[in-house]
């Protein structure tokens, strides 16, 4: 072999390893999706903390390479760096860490002051089970239907946790769908809220919430964890961490831990979770007809969840005394997209009455939605795992 042939042979081998030689149409489609997510996040400011890592993760996961070369670089290749980082998603331990941070960030005062708002958080979970029925009708198996339906909880970590247990092969599509619709909450919810409420109902003023004592705030995570986890032990990883984080925040003697859980830890896990979920959407795994169905079902789940929250409040108002009526505009906040959906309730309330601030009232069902979706996930896991 001449020196020229030697160079040529090596360059040819190198070419076979490049992305250009291994690219397929699917890769370019997914790269476009990744770029679209990054554009949405940066230009439209839609959930940038989630969509930037996911979008860039999609780019990382869809750079084509020679899978037969044994380079150990792909997210599904055991031992690769991405695969090691992906373990937090596939084994389901990132979501409970995120829940720890959510617990440490969340002030449950609005819920403690007005406990009946918890029922709105429960009602919004109809979205999950409505989507479950539709998914079964489309032809998904019960475990896959359960994993897809949890998108209706509007809770990314819960969706990832449940799908990693019930339908690992659909996890990428479910996670991307859940986060996409969470980012689109400001677009999806307001028309539904207007549709199901009258002008008179939108003007309902709610009584200011009572002050909540420190003791109540400390008791809440302890009793909350014990009660909910005794009912649904399969929700323990999520609910346990959520209430633990909240106790760190409220007990007053672990400020350093609460600060770390709600800032540094959550940021680190969010980066890893978003990036690896994005990278898991390799074209070969992601671009299937099932993905289209999952996006459709996710959309349905969001609509049912938001509508059922609003309609439940209207129903609830029928039995409440006149001075304790609830403004149905806070019903949408029963989905657990915290605090986005509560903010939407507030903005819409202000649109109809510039002095009617609903934010603190809406935070009650909003955080109840977090608990409700974790309980619903535990129920599905208990029934179908």
């Amino acid at each position: 072999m001449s020196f020229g042939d030697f160079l040529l042979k090596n360059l040819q081998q190198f070419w076979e390893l490049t992305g250009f030689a291994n690219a397929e149409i699917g890769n370019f489609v997914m790269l476009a999706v990744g770029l679209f997510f990054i554009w949405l996040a940066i230009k439209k400011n839609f959930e940038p903390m989630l969509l930037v890592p996911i979008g860039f993760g999609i780019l990382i996961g869809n750079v084509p390479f020679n899978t037969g070369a044994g380079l150990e670089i792909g997210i599904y290749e055991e031992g690769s760096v991405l695969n090691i980082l992906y373990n937090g998603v596939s084994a389901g331990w990132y979501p409970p860490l995120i829940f720890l941070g959510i617990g440490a960030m969340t002030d449950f005062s609005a819920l403690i002051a007005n406990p009946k708002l918890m029922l709105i958080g429960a009602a919004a979970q109809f979205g999950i089970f409505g989507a479950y029925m539709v998914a079964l009708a489309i032809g998904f198996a019960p475990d896959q239907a359960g994993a897809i339906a949890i998108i209706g909880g509007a809770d990314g970590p819960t969706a990832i946790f449940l799908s990693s247990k019930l339908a690992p092969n659909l996890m990428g599509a479910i996670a991307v769908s859940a986060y996409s619709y969470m980012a689109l909450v400001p677009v999806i919810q307001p028309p539904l809220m207007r549709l199901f409420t009258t002008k008179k109902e939108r003007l309902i003023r709610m009584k200011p919430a009572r002050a909540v004592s420190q003791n109540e705030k400390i008791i809440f995570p302890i009793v909350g964890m014990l009660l909910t986890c005794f009912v649904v032990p399969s929700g323990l990883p999520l609910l346990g961490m959520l209430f633990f984080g909240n106790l760190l925040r409220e007990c007053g003697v672990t400020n350093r831990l609460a600060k770390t859980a709600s800032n540094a830890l959550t940021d680190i896990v969010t980066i890893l979770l978003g990036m690896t979920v994005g990278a898991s959407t390799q074209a070969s795994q992601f671009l299937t007809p099932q993905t289209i169905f999952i996006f459709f079902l996710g959309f349905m789940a969001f609509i049912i969840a938001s509508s059922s929250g609003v309609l439940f409040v209207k129903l609830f108002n029928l039995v409440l005394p006149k001075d304790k009526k609830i403004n149905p505009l806070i019903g949408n906040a029963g989905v657990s997209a915290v605090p986005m959906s509560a903010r939407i309730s507030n903005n819409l309330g202000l649109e109809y009455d510039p002095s009617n601030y609903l934010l603190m009232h809406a935070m009650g069902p909003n955080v109840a939605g977090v608990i409700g979706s974790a309980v619903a996930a535990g129920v599905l896991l208990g029934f179908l795992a």
Partner: protein
Amino acid sequence: MKRKLFITAMLVVAAASAAFAQGRKALRINEVMVQNESSIVDDYGEHHGWIELFNSNFAPLEISSVYLTNDTTDKKKYPVPLGDVNTRIAKRQHVVFFADGQPDKGTFHTNFVLEPGKDNWIGIYDADGSTLIDEVFIPASLATDNSYARTVDGAGEWAVRDGGAAYITPSSANVIRDTNNKIEEFAERDANGFGMTVMAMCIVFSALLVLCLCFYGIGKINSSISRLNKMRAHGVEKHEVEKGEVAHDSGEEIAAIVMALHDHLDAHDTENTILTINKVKRAYSPWSSKIYSLREVPGVNHRR
């Protein structure tokens, strides 16, 4: 001192209970064959009676130093040897010991044999040689090449298996499942998902309703306690409050008091005029040392 002792005692109790909870009590005798003529062979190609153990934990279990015995008077008859990597049983997995009376053949060969035609008893004792982990009585009627097995791995009743419709399953699960029964059942009996929806929503509502009622009660109790404390602080009686003689503090009043306190505490019009200078100690670290981030002037070196 007392506090330290208390904390140490609590830690010891917690560690001991954790060790007990996750210890070898999860080890189960799962299936036994007394007389083996055509079932599995050992590494030497020979047929012997065998004992299958099952780790019913959802975590790996190390079984070295537990005792296997067929003699109620000799609890430490066969100690499972130390130092063999195969004595670590993966979660929900099995190992088989050959009861051939030839322990020199390896870890999984016991120093006793099972006796056909007689009642056999097998026990597993923990490393202390006195804590019984599991035991089984095998009836004398057990035929050749039949096994005596649990109906469900690690639990349930014992039954004779003849190798026909009732499989003999050394080193594998006693119940062979090719589908997830739960999912099959839901797919068959609840094809439209209505049952799941009703059940799940009832559970979600119940969980949050219980929490709601609980905090409604806690809120009431808390309000009563704070009212009592307030009455005590003001030195008023309950009937005065009921008559409305004691006015409630309005939110505006509380806000005004808080703001006044804030202004008062934040006031800097009087200083104590004492200046304190504390020495700041910084631990040396090569990662933050300025020595490594400053460049020496070449000329200075040259002059030296």
